[in-house]
């Protein structure tokens, strides 16, 4: 599978020709549509809402948001952000209903706190991992994006970001950036271990006052869905690691010394006397 984000920046890659190709390809249209529907399913919106579409491109995903029938809680209104002028140009020609912004999501999200009910992003945030200029790093751009997104969502709001991670390192980098920004994060994989794997990062911004406690994170979201296996690594992680080392023991002292050394502090060398009790003087 080709990865355009490896070679060029998003606004350079999606020029007029590429933007048109992308939008008119029926294969891409189908994939985008099904991913948008899946993302909406995960958002689980009951009333007409204001949604942020991150990396809206030519508005393929936005169209679906505008077309949700009233009995399913729609139609939603949306605000789209994209960095490629050519993509937005195609969106204008297609006469989409949402408001469009020419903006770089790696520079943050310029909306005031608590603006959006929800946010979706279809095949966009992997572009954040390849920002090569001397002034910014992918980590910085991810932090700015997730920080801005967290602020602009209302409390209890959800964001679903479908993306194509290059490898596990990238997946880890994106998830940890989201968690650092304050989100509760979970990952949903459709068709895992196949070529068509689709990765959805489901983020929740704080607890809503009305939501019950269970629906707070992704395990609550997918609870009622069919064919979803929940793999929860959190419990295991907590029980192992801590608890085995007793405070004050030799092992514990060595661990602390290593920690200090990593911080750059001056630490005395470890010897056979480390952690031993002094003999009783009297």
């Amino acid at each position, binding site marked *: 599978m080709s990865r355009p984000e490896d070679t060029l920046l998003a606004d350079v890659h999606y020029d007029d020709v590429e933007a048109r190709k992308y939008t008119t390809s029926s294969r891409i249209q189908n994939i985008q549509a099904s991913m948008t529907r899946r993302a909406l399913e995960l958002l689980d919106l009951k*009333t*007409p*809402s*204001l949604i942020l579409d991150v990396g809206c491109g030519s508005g393929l995903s936005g169209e679906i948001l505008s077309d949700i029938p009233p009995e399913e809680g729609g*139609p939603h*209104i949306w*605000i789209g*952000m994209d*960095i490629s002028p050519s993509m*937005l140009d195609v969106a*204008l020609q297609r006469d989409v*209903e949402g*408001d*469009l*912004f*020419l*903006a*770089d999501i790696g*520079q*943050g999200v*310029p*909306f*005031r706190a*608590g*603006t959006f*009910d929800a946010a979706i992003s279809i095949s966009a945030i992997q572009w954040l991992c390849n920002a090569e*200029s001397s*002034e*910014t790093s992918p980590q910085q751009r991810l932090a*700015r994006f997730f920080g801005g997104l967290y602020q602009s969502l*209302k409390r209890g709001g959800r964001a679903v970001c479908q993306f194509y991670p290059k490898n596990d390192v990238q997946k880890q980098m994106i998830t940890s950036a989201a968690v650092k920004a304050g989100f509760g994060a979970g990952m949903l994989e459709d068709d895992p271990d196949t070529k068509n794997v689709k990765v959805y990062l489901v983020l929740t911004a704080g607890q809503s006052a009305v939501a019950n406690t269970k629906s707070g994170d992704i395990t609550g979201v997918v609870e009622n869905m069919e064919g979803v296996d929940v793999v929860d690594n959190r419990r295991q992680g907590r029980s192992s690691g801590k608890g085995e080392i007793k405070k004050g023991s030799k092992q514990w002292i060595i661990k602390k010394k290593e920690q200090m050394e990593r911080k750059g502090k001056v630490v005395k060398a470890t010897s056979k006397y480390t952690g031993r009790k002094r003999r009783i003087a009297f």
Partner: protein
Amino acid sequence: MKLLTLNFLTCAVKTCKSSSDSFPLHPKDAELASDDVEVNPELLVNLLPRLDWKALKTTSAELGFPQLPDSPPTIEQLQSDDKLLKDLHSLLMETNLMEGKLVCGVCGHEYAVREGIPNFLLPSHLV
């Protein structure tokens, strides 16, 4: 860009984030257009508590619309008064800012708006 969106938009410059004057952005040399959008009362009721009424008042005065009342209508008022709902709908959803500039009240940065699309790309020293 809908006036509704303008009511949520702040300056993207980092140093303006902490200042309250960076919101709302002030339209300059604005060209407006009116679009027909179907009225969606549920959506307006959902959005009403989130609107910054003071900012909306400032914006609509700057664009030369008739003066809005001092306090926002309550949800009950909105649900019972059809004319109020229509007026608010046409102001927020149907009025579009097509050309012009949006100016930040703190740093004075001008965001150009062309064909309804504001340009929020910042030079890297402002991020």
